[in-house]
């Protein structure tokens, strides 16, 4: 082992245990999605993350709820919302109000299919308390186009309406509950959906996922469907169907720059090498634009940054997350290049062109880390799944000796970002005690995750972590308190937007926070917010 563990403290440190529990939990919530990883099965991942949720919910309920605002991934946001709604009879009224508004805000920021599925899970778990019904009602009422939801997510909306005893507006009730209705609807989309039962022409006006099912039942060819439904496809659907369209000789125009950074990276890596070589400039420009857009959403300004990027065989992911670690590495590389004043990437096996990168070979982090340190950067970001084998544990040793002998003033900070959750350890696998590790699901969340990294290092006290979470909770609530019913988080400010926060404290919804955050305290937090989000240990 690199260092002898420090002698155990004489007293049992409740605070330290609490801080480590929370850091571990939030880290897991950044990375884990319950899907199979290269080294672990989906079963193990699900059991592991489920346990963490139950443990934190039982012991630190208020902080558990505020984790909703910490920038964690969708899977865990949905889990937290459901777990909070399923329990909580004993929760004090003020906390319950805060929980309620956090859940509502978090659900509104989730993609609709995930939010609806989370709410539907309430029915499967037989949770039907007053608050759960109110959350379902509020969520559906806040959706911008109920008729579209009723068509596209018909089963979900129907199940929720039954479960929460809802009075649905307009013609949606008859649409959902009278499947054999003959009389025409006044709402155009509902009418087209009714006609699609009889008329083939009407199929192509429906959302693609609905049209696909009807087309298959009606025997419409894939080629015709792709061609005629193209105008109604979302950008995500266009990207997803690129290969199918290529097989059918249909041209699906897609604006790669509008897709999220990790999605573009995944798409680029899914192409065979010759195609990547041919479309190199296009892919490169798309990744650049996606990175710039991600940075506009959550800005980060960094100095001289070096990235050590893992392209070993394990970066190929699993059948459920194919090439995800590699795509996150590619995305992070583009994001850092856009955010940093000076940037250099050090892949574990040097690659002439990042677009052509593939997952091969052993994991040698120590040698590229040494190269990176020789370049004298301010920050070294190591992106790896933490399974280092050539030699094992050497990156941590290099970091330890470098810190102890060559950089005692901490001029260079080293942080390990891990896109893979290790179910055996209930956390993303760390490289060693000398390098703090944080989880990451999407490359575009990097600024948030870097802001959290100082807690992973283990030096920041618990109070600071609590303040950080409270401040993120206020920021989340303020985004939604201003525009109740806003469905798309398209125009959201930065994760800790100072302007929105100042206005929010005065709002009635945020009063529920009073016992957690003193108003003066919150205002003070508001001032330091933008800096805190980008601080790196």
């Amino acid at each position, binding site marked *: 082992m690199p260092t002898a563990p420090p002698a155990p403290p004489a007293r049992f440190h409740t605070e330290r245990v609490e801080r480590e529990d929370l850091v571990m939990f939030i880290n897991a919530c950044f990375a884990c999605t319950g899907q199979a990883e290269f080294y672990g099965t989906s079963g193990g991942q699900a059991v592991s993350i489920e346990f963490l949720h139950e443990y934190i919910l039982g012991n630190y309920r208020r902080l558990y709820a505020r984790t909703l605002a910490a920038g964690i991934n969708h899977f865990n946001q949905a889990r937290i919302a459901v777990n909070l709604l399923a329990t909580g009879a004993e929760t004090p009224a003020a906390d319950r109000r805060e929980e309620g508004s956090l859940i509502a805000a978090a659900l509104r920021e989730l993609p609709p299919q995930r939010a609806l599925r989370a709410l539907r899970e309430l029915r499967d778990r037989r949770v039907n308390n007053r608050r759960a019904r109110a959350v379902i009602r509020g969520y559906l009422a806040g959706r911008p186009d109920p008729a579209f939801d009723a068509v596209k997510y018909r089963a979900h909306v129907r199940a929720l309406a039954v479960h929460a005893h809802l009075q649905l507006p307009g013609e949606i009730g008859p649409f959902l509950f009278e499947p054999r209705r003959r009389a025409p609807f006044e709402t155009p989309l509902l009418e087209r959906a009714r006609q699609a039962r009889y008329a083939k022409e009407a199929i192509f006006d429906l959302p693609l996922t609905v049209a696909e099912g009807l087309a298959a039942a009606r025997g419409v060819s894939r080629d015709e469907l792709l061609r005629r439904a193209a105008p109604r496809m979302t950008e995500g659907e266009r990207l997803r169907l690129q290969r199918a369209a290529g097989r059918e000789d249909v041209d699906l125009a897609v604006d790669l720059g509008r897709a999220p950074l990790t999605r573009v990276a995944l798409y680029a890596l899914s192409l065979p090498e010759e195609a990547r070589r041919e479309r190199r400039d296009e892919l490169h420009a798309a990744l650049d634009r996606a990175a710039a857009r991600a940075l506009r959403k959550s800005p980060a300004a960094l100095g001289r940054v070096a990235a050590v990027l893992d392209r070993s065989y394990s970066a190929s992911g699993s059948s459920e997350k194919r090439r995800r670690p590699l795509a996150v590495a590619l995305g992070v590389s583009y994001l850092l290049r856009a955010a940093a004043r000076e940037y250099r990437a050090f892949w574990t096996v040097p690659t002439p062109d990042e677009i052509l990168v593939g997952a091969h070979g*052993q994991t040698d982090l120590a040698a590229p880390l040494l190269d990176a340190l020789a370049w004298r950067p301010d920050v070294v970001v190591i992106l790896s799944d933490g399974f280092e084998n050539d030699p094992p544990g050497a990156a941590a040793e290099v970091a330890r000796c470098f810190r*102890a*002998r060559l950089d005692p003033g901490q001029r260079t900070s080293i942080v390990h970002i891990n896109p893979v959750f290790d179910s055996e350890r209930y956390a993303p696998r760390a490289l060693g005690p000398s390098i703090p590790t944080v989880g990451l699901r999407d490359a575009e969340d990097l600024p948030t995750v870097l802001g959290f990294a100082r807690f992973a290092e283990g030096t920041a006290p618990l109070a600071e972590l609590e303040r950080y979470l409270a401040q993120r909770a206020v920021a989340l609530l303020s985004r939604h308190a201003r525009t109740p019913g806003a469905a798309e988080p398209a125009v959201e400010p930065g994760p800790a937007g100072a302007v929105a926060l100042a206005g929010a404290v005065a709002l009635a919804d945020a009063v529920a926070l009073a016992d957690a955050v003193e108003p003066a305290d919150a205002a003070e937090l508001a001032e330091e917010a933008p800096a805190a989000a980008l601080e790196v240990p």
Partner: protein
Amino acid sequence: MAKAPALLRSLSLRGLSATHAQVFAGVRLVPLLRDAPRDDLRIAGRRHDDAWSIVNLGDGRAYCSYVPHALVIGWTDDGSPVASYGAALAGPEVRNPLSKWGCGVQLLHRMARREVRGEDPAERNRLRLLPLHLAMEGFLALHFNAPEIAWSEYSRRAISRGLDPRTEMSLSGRAIPSLEDALRVFEIHEGQCGVLLFVGELLASVFVVSHPDDYRALHRTLIEDFYEQTLLYAARHNGDSQALEHTFDAARIGSLDDLRAALGRARAEAGALHVDTAAGLLGRPIAAERVYRAGPFSLQRFMTELDPALDNHIGEAIVREDGTLEYAKTYRLAAGQVRRARLLQQLSAHGWNLDATAAALRTTRDQLIRRIDGEGFGYLIAEHVLKAALKRTK
């Protein structure tokens, strides 16, 4: 014609260097990197539709076994690159019409067979080989025709048919816990040409090929090989293998170059250490036998001297005339297999005379007969002799 390569006297990793092992549960895989791979000998795998095969050994003998794949070796005599490799080298699959009903059996001629396809002289240097079976056949056929003198103690069957049929049990790689996962998650190095496979810290096998691309293609076939039974218990009960982690001495680090040097030392130490842990095979004296000769290469099968106190291995290898190891695959012998082979060796050395053998083993004749029976060769001894001996030694 080049001069014939000498027979192996011991197995050494000439031309190869070991590096850091990768550990998964109880399985440790030590990559072997080739310093200067050459492409005048290429190996490709050929899958069999029917895993069960009957192999005609010539001279009227046949051999039935699980052979899920064969290796096809192509070489050139003048050192130029082999023109075809991969699927082209392995050649088209010979389809057996019964295989789709799952009841087919592959019929194969000889363990190692020269295959000549087409007229192109570049395509003529091809050898088909059944991996590990070559070595195992050599092991089983040791003293196969016992005994030469019709001593009266032996049964009629022993005199007329010898040890036929001689059988040994092995395990499929799939039976060994975590081996499949360990092979799946193993990250193949750039330039890797071989592997030392340890299960529960016992050396299970050495697998070496000549070219990195061939290794990449054949890596997963390790799961289809057969292994001795002790490895099953070793994998279950020896606990997880530990990764070898190094500690740098921070006091001696004054610059990044020092760190780089420390890293280099760690790599060198690890390689040497892993080779040392394979000392049960590497560097031990072996008895080799040439099976086939092809240009500058020779295919040999070998066996370490049988010593119950040490690990014992059998295997096959292709050696270039300068002594470079181009292909090797070994099988670890179980303790029981070593005992049986030694007993047969002793009997054979003393002309199958029970009294002389007993004297050499410093035991009595009856005890020797009991031992022969205990090792499963009771059928060699005449029934009344065996019963009397068992009764007297009860």
